[in-house]
């Protein structure tokens, strides 16, 4: 009789959550580590943007040192500003250093998402709901079944036409 409340609790969400709570703590610690890395690449990302901005602005100042005085001059100044900024930023976005850093930044962001997914899975399991991986398995199975059906339909059409 004393084991009954325990048995009852074994089907409830709190027991399932308690059993996996260590997983949540581990994920939170790892999130912090990923966040540090993410911030490193994010800082580099903004550093590259601000350096390019400063360089572009210097070029604009050299090319158009006078303050525009009328509408025509403003138009000319705007054209120069846009052309120089577009050229310099496109050069940055095309560069290896930007591509590599951006790739790492996105990669770290994905790792953060993965930790978040893992924490969500613990909560989903506690609520007796399918995890992301389990839903993915269903999607995969559906995809494979659809392919098999299409193949069978084609074969059956061929046989009918023979």
């Amino acid at each position, binding site marked *: 009789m004393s084991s009954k409340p325990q048995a009852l609790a074994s089907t409830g969400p709190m027991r399932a959550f308690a059993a996996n709570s260590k997983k949540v703590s581990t994920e939170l610690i790892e999130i912090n580590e990923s966040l540090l890395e993410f911030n490193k690449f994010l800082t580099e990302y903004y550093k590259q943007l601000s350096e390019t901005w400063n360089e572009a602005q210097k070029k604009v100042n050299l090319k158009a040192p006078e303050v525009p005085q009328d*509408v025509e001059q403003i138009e000319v100044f705007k054209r120069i500003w846009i052309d120089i900024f577009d050229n310099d930023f496109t050069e940055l976005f095309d560069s290896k250093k930007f591509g590599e850093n951006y790739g790492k930044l996105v990669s770290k962001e994905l790792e953060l998402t993965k930790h978040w997914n893992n924490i969500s899975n613990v909560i989903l399991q506690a609520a007796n709901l399918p995890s992301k991986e389990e839903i993915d398995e269903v999607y995969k199975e559906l995809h494979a079944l659809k392919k098999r059906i299409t193949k069978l339909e084609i074969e059956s059409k061929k046989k009918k036409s023979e």
Partner: protein
Amino acid sequence: MKSESKIDPKIMEEIIRFNKNIINAPKLVDAPDEIVLEVTPHDVVQEIDKTRLLHYKPLTDKQHKTPLVISYALINRYHILDIQPEKSWVRNLVQQGFDVYMLDWGNPTSMDKYLDFDDYVNGYLDGAIEFIKNESSVEKVSLQGYCTGATLATAYTTLHPESVKNYIATAPVIDGWRDTTVISNLAKNMDVEKMVDIIGNMPPEFMYYCFSVLKPFEQGIEKYVNFFKNIDNKKFVDNFLRVEKWLSDTPPIPGELFKQWIKDIYQDNLLIQNKMYVNNNHIDLKKIDMPIFTQVAVGDHLVSPECSMPLHYAVGSEDKTLRMYPTGHVGMIASSLSQKKVLPELGKWLLERS
């Protein structure tokens, strides 16, 4: 002594007028949901999963026998090819007497993450072409692929050359290593395995980021300044809003398809080296032996000419034409230049072979 600063009164007038235009904009401009992007009448003749095959209604008494199937890109929706009557790619071809079909890839959801190149090439595209062949009682169709849709169409044409009478590759994504665009730089450095594993489909937000780094100041500032300056010009505003609505509507790309596309085209560059496989089927560009017309835009900042042109030299066809146009990626298909030059040339080329 104080220096007197003089401000040209015209500058003040400009500023006042510009502010007035911003205030008046909501009264003068349609809301995005009031704009209908499909302009040329059509029927939906086939639906497979989320894809739809559109068949455009004829606008001429007589039509050329060989139907033309358009395989649109995976980024954004097909509406840009029918964005407004005066700039509609589709309408122009229908008016030239062609029997035009368009494959709408639809809006994939999370459950479509396992759809791959094979599903698109040997499933949806092949399903559409087989349907058209039956419907029109023809053995072959003319196939046009645009941008990434041309990558799919190229793979299809190598695997099913018996179904393709003429192939038109418009700004095709072929040689990833030669591509000099920002998109290719981002794609080459992307951990696509991790992306697909963790988030499934390629999210639209990622594509919006990619758009935002293409000519960021021209597109992010100048474009909108011009919009408010021309707020009284109905035609300009209508065109602007249609393109903006189209730009802001990009569906997710199924994870497996996106993975193979990034790896095989941009990272390993397998297609142009004749090393790519789709579900164990070898994609050999030499098998493209029918007439081929490659259209390239010199100012294309999404698919650079260096990325598209190698197709012309890699195929096995003897009857091949390469045309370069002084415009951009979208300008080639939805501009007055496309109506005056690109489409008449394409129509003439197709007519001689239909």
